[in-house]
């Protein structure tokens, strides 16, 4: 394991200090916690949008803190959901009485910890709503299982719910937007090489020189299927064909596309991949309102990418276009 770190035990606290010291005018760390909040939190007469999760997904989630997006990001250990007390701190630091929306990625740990935090917050009289993002089509969805994972589509939930909150939406309205995004966003990922956990120095899975892992999540865990690496176009086609069907798009429908780098894949390759995605969408007559290419929801230094497609309606389009001051999602 070769990492630009000091002691792996200090990695989260040092990262958080490094983030806050980069953007001292727009964010601050709630003292003694792993919460990064807008400098001006709690914002008067505004619903707060709070998210977070395990670390190792940078710029998620702290990079999305800022006017027009998140009010707070709560950081857990690497790939480990933050604990309820930390989430509670994020809630308390951002609620001005207008209520708080928790945006949770659908992983057992995250769901349980946030649920407990919500219980604690409600017992302190704070109005809390939760949404659980489950955009990953690689995982089978059934009421008897854990259900789908929440992956890069979460970034759209942050952006659009954040924009609604900034526009003065009520807690119910902000949650409504988040629900709408969740219902209309689908993703799937592929890995070319695993990431290395800083704590153990071990890779999450092994891949031969000519193999890819289809349907990976964002925690270094193995994916759904190991296959031969053929070409960027083949992979783009496979991901697109998996992501699109449930959105039931008709020609003339508008979408937003995110090609998200998992960490180590050069942007050059993301664009080669994007080329094919855009061709497929164009062939189907689907109109792309906006394309976002870059690293948004990473998995440390995993190589690979994910494709996210969000079906837009007029309100979602407007919210996507709205300004954002979050350092990792400026608009």
């Amino acid at each position, binding site marked *: 394991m070769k990492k630009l770190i000091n002691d792996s035990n200090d990695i989260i606290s040092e990262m958080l200090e490094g983030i806050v010291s980069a953007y001292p005018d727009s964010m601050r760390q709630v003292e003694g916690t792993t919460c990064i909040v807008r400098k001006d939190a709690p914002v008067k007469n505004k619903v707060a949008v709070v998210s977070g999760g*395990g670390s190792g997904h940078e710029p998620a989630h702290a990079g999305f803190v800022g006017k027009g997006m998140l009010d707070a990001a709560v950081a*857990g*250990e*690497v*790939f*480990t*959901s*933050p*604990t*309820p*007390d*930390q989430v509670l701190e994020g809630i308390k630091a951002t609620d001005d009485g207008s209520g708080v929306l928790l945006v949770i990625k659908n*992983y*057992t*740990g995250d769901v*349980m*910890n946030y*649920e*407990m935090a919500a219980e604690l917050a409600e017992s302190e009289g704070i109005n809390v709503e939760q949404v659980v993002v489950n955009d990953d089509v*690689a*995982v*089978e969805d059934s009421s*008897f*299982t*854990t259900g789908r*994972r929440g992956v890069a589509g979460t970034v759209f939930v942050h952006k659009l719910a954040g924009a609604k909150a900034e526009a003065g939406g009520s807690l119910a309205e902000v949650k409504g937007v988040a629900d709408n995004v969740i219902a209309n966003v689908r993703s799937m990922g592929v890995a070319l090489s695993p990431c290395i*956990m800083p*704590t*153990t120095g*071990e890779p*999450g*899975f092994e891949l031969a020189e000519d193999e890819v892992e289809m349907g990976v*999540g964002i*925690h*270094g*865990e*193995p994916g*759904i299927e190991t296959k031969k690496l053929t070409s960027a176009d083949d992979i783009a086609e496979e991901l697109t064909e998996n992501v699109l069907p449930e959105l039931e798009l008709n020609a003339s429908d508008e979408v937003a596309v995110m090609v998200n780098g998992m960490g180590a894949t050069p942007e050059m390759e993301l664009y080669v991949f994007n080329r094919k995605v855009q061709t497929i969408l164009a062939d189907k007559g689907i109109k792309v309102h906006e394309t976002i290419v870059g690293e948004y929801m990473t998995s440390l230094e995993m190589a690979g990418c994910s494709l996210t497609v969000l079906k837009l309606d007029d309100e979602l389009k407007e919210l996507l276009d709205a300004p954002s001051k979050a350092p990792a999602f400026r608009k």
Partner: protein
Amino acid sequence: MKLNATQAVNWMIKTNEKIQKQSDYLSQLDRDIGDGDHGINMARGFQAVEDTLSNEEFAEVSDVLKKTATTIMSKVGGAAGPLYGTAFQKMAMTSKGTEVDSETFSNMVEAAVEGLKQRGKSEEGEKTMIDVWSPLHDALKETSEFDGEKIREIAHSSMESTKDMVATKGRAAYLKERSKGHLDPGSVSSYYVFEALSETLEKG
């Protein structure tokens, strides 16, 4: 045979010893079917438990377990944090104000199982730590003896039984059939908890 507060502290210290020693092994198990952090999570949490318990005096078992629960809850995170936190919290509540004999302990484990199921929205047979806690309760309610070796044995065979299961809850569920053939990491750490209890009871 009863468990007193001092023993309860020893139980947790012994658990921590085992977890520290097996941390890499637990992470390796989690790497096979999860995200590879279970050992790290548990080691961080139980070290904090030992540190906190060592600095305080406790009147009864319930107080020890309560302190354990809150420490785990704020130190572990992930899935294991809320689950172990809930299990110890339920055991603390059930043992409040009473001596911990075989019957009380059976009730404590019953409450823990209830708590785990509720918190994890899960059942037996889904390849989770419940598959250690629940069979243990089944065995405990059949006997009035507080038999450490028996507890260890049942926890051990239950832990082993998770190997053949297909996970439908937790991270391992994403692997579906591929999760078969691997022990569930949370069940293995749960086994250490009961192995530590067994040793504590046997030392008296």
